[in-house]
């Protein structure tokens, strides 16, 4: 039996992986082969990718179109022979070799919804260890790992868990923030599609750690394939005693359910998300009280990002100390970086903190897709700053980014070449805030609308100096007066565009 791998990841599918799989199936009917639909290795310029298992290891071919299948088979695809699309061992390519795959260790290798595959590749070892520990000791491992929330705010996960652990209540909840609303980000999606068990295991460990018996994955509606994979994996986990009552004979209980969002960016904000889960409009709640104390249905709740939770199994398997040894300064462990936009080699790159933007953009990303100079990159989603070339040597590190008025956020990097007008992007940032504001506070709700108007006046050459000053004032009000980061951070893209690319607004460069 020969095993072949073709991805079921959304991006691979968006490039035709389904048709390639079907074509291959047809051409090999009656032969002793099995086609496994895996996650993606994250080298998207090579998708659709076929990997074949040979005696000498896995051999890859890509990007494969349906019309290539016949010639691939003729030249000996099943034996791993040469062909113009031959790539050899994917893991030997520099893009792959230089990664530190801790969280994404299995993605692209296993069948995402096969529990046997998961177990055969070190799955559920973290849970096994956790079941032998006291809750406080699980939390201690997480604290020691130095893991900070990957959803944006970079808050230490161990501290959050400790708060929930110490909050007395009959019912507690684990909520996974799978809203991944930031543009240019897809690592949550990739892990949910490519290794859903690792998220399930992470949430189960979180439940044990703080005494929560119910978990919810709040998943954005834009991710239908992730929902399918998660539900298949959850069903398998229930059937095999990894979810539900008496997990692996331990007497512990954890239930898990996927809930769909409905296309509101602000529902990625944790309190708005909780409102939405309760069946209400996603209005942001005042803090305090923190969700850790008064969360879902008024009970103590851990709200963590997908990648934060998916990083837990390796921490419990190999120890907090092991995880902590990756990284730089106070940014410990690894970050799944997403290279997107106008980039030649777009995809997912998991590395320890400390790699620089320049390395990512040129050494791994291969420069722009258009072949034109890279002019600006926006890191950290629609509320992140635009960074000019002069900042490309910044290492990926929460503090180094903060020091120059930028944010790392969820690790999404969106590349723009020199045809992008940064004034247009600044205007869009305000427009997005108009569209997505929850409406609870005035600086965000009204400020963003005024912001669009003021930028329009600047671009129309109406009282340029006065309106530029007004725009800065407005940004100041939004920064200081908004209840959450939606209004509070919209000034990041706007002001960074204005400060680093004034010529796009028809302005002289200032000191800024």
């Amino acid at each position: 039996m020969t095993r072949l791998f073709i991805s079921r990841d959304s991006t691979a599918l968006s490039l035709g992986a389904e048709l390639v799989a079907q074509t291959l199936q047809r051409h090999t009917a009656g032969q002793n082969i099995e086609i496994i639909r895996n996650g993606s290795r994250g080298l998207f310029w090579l998708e659709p990718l076929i990997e074949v298992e040979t005696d000498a290891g896995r051999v890859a071919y890509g990007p494969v179109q349906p019309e290539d299948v016949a010639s691939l088979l003729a030249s000996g695809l099943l034996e791993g022979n040469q062909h113009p699309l031959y790539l050899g061992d994917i893991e030997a390519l520099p893009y792959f070799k230089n990664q530190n795959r801790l969280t994404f260790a299995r993605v692209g290798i296993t069948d995402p919804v096969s529990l046997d595959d998961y177990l055969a590749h070190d799955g559920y070892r973290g849970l096994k260890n956790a079941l032998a520990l006291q809750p406080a000791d699980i939390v201690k491992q997480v604290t020691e790992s130095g893991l900070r929330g990957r959803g944006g705010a970079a808050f230490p996960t161990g501290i959050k868990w400790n708060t929930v652990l110490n909050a007395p209540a009959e019912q507690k909840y684990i909520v996974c923030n799978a809203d991944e609303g930031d543009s240019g980000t897809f690592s949550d999606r990739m892990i949910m599609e490519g290794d859903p068990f690792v998220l399930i295991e992470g949430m189960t460990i979180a439940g044990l750690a703080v005494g929560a018996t119910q978990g919810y994955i709040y998943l954005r509606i834009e991710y239908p394939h992730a929902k399918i994979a998660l539900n298949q994996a959850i069903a398998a986990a229930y059937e095999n005693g990894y979810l539900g009552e008496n997990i692996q004979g331990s007497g512990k209980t954890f239930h898990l359910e996927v809930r769909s969002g409905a296309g509101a960016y602000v529902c990625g904000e944790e309190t708005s998300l909780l409102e939405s889960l309760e069946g209400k409009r996603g209005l942001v709640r005042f803090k305090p009280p923190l969700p850790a104390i008064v969360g879902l249905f008024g009970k103590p709740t851990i709200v963590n990002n997908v990648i934060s939770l998916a990083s837990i199994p390796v921490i419990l398997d190999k120890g907090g100390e092991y995880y902590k040894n990756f990284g730089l300064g106070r940014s410990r462990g690894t970050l799944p970086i997403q290279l997107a936009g106008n980039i030649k080699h777009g995809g997912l790159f998991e590395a320890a903190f400390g790699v620089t933007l320049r390395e990512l953009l040129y050494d791994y990303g291969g420069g722009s897709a258009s072949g034109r100079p890279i002019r600006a990159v926006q890191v950290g989603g629609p509320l992140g700053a635009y960074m000019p070339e002069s900042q490309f040597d910044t290492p990926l590190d929460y503090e180094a980014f903060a020091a120059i008025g930028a944010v790392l956020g969820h690790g999404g990097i969106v590349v723009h070449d020199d045809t992008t007008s940064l004034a247009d992007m600044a205007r869009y940032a305000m427009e997005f805030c108009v569209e997505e504001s929850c409406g609870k506070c005035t600086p965000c709700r009204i400020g963003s609308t005024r912001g669009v108007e003021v930028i329009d006046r600047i671009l129309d050459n109406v009282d340029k100096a006065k309106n530029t000053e007004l725009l800065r004032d407005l940004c100041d009000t939004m920064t200081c007066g908004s209840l959450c980061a939606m209004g509070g951070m919209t000034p990041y893209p706007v002001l960074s565009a204005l400060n680093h690319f004034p010529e796009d607004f028809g302005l002289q460069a200032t000191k800024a």
Partner: protein
Amino acid sequence: MQDYQTQQPTVLKILDAHREMPGNLLPILHGIQDTLGYIPPDAVPDIAKALNLSKAEVHGVVSFYHYFRVTPPGKHTIRICRAESCQSMNSKTLETHAKQTLNIDFHETSADGMFSLEPVYCLGNCACSPAITIDNEVFGRVSPEKFDQLLATFKGTE
């Protein structure tokens, strides 16, 4: 538009199936939209009654979320990503092309009832921008030419 009387049994069945679920309003609305294609405004009083909410509260939730719609969609729904990564790869040109080709704006349905057009802010396919979905299928690196091919394919499958 369909008569609510014929839709009501479906709505009541969905309401009944979610009776015990905590935080059930969104799952109910999804259930209704998945089956009927939209949330008939006439269903709001039924939902409100079943959940012991005011009609205004239910309406408030329906209107808060971009995904929920209160009119029937076309046969296929096309969603075009308008977010930054797709913009950096000329999604604006694609957007203009789509609107012209279908002769509609966002939130409208083509005259033949075949396609509805909706904006979306990121599909997680940003490494292969510009991205669109047609129903539940994702497509990457969509040029205007590829868009036309896709339209033809989806028309052909009817």
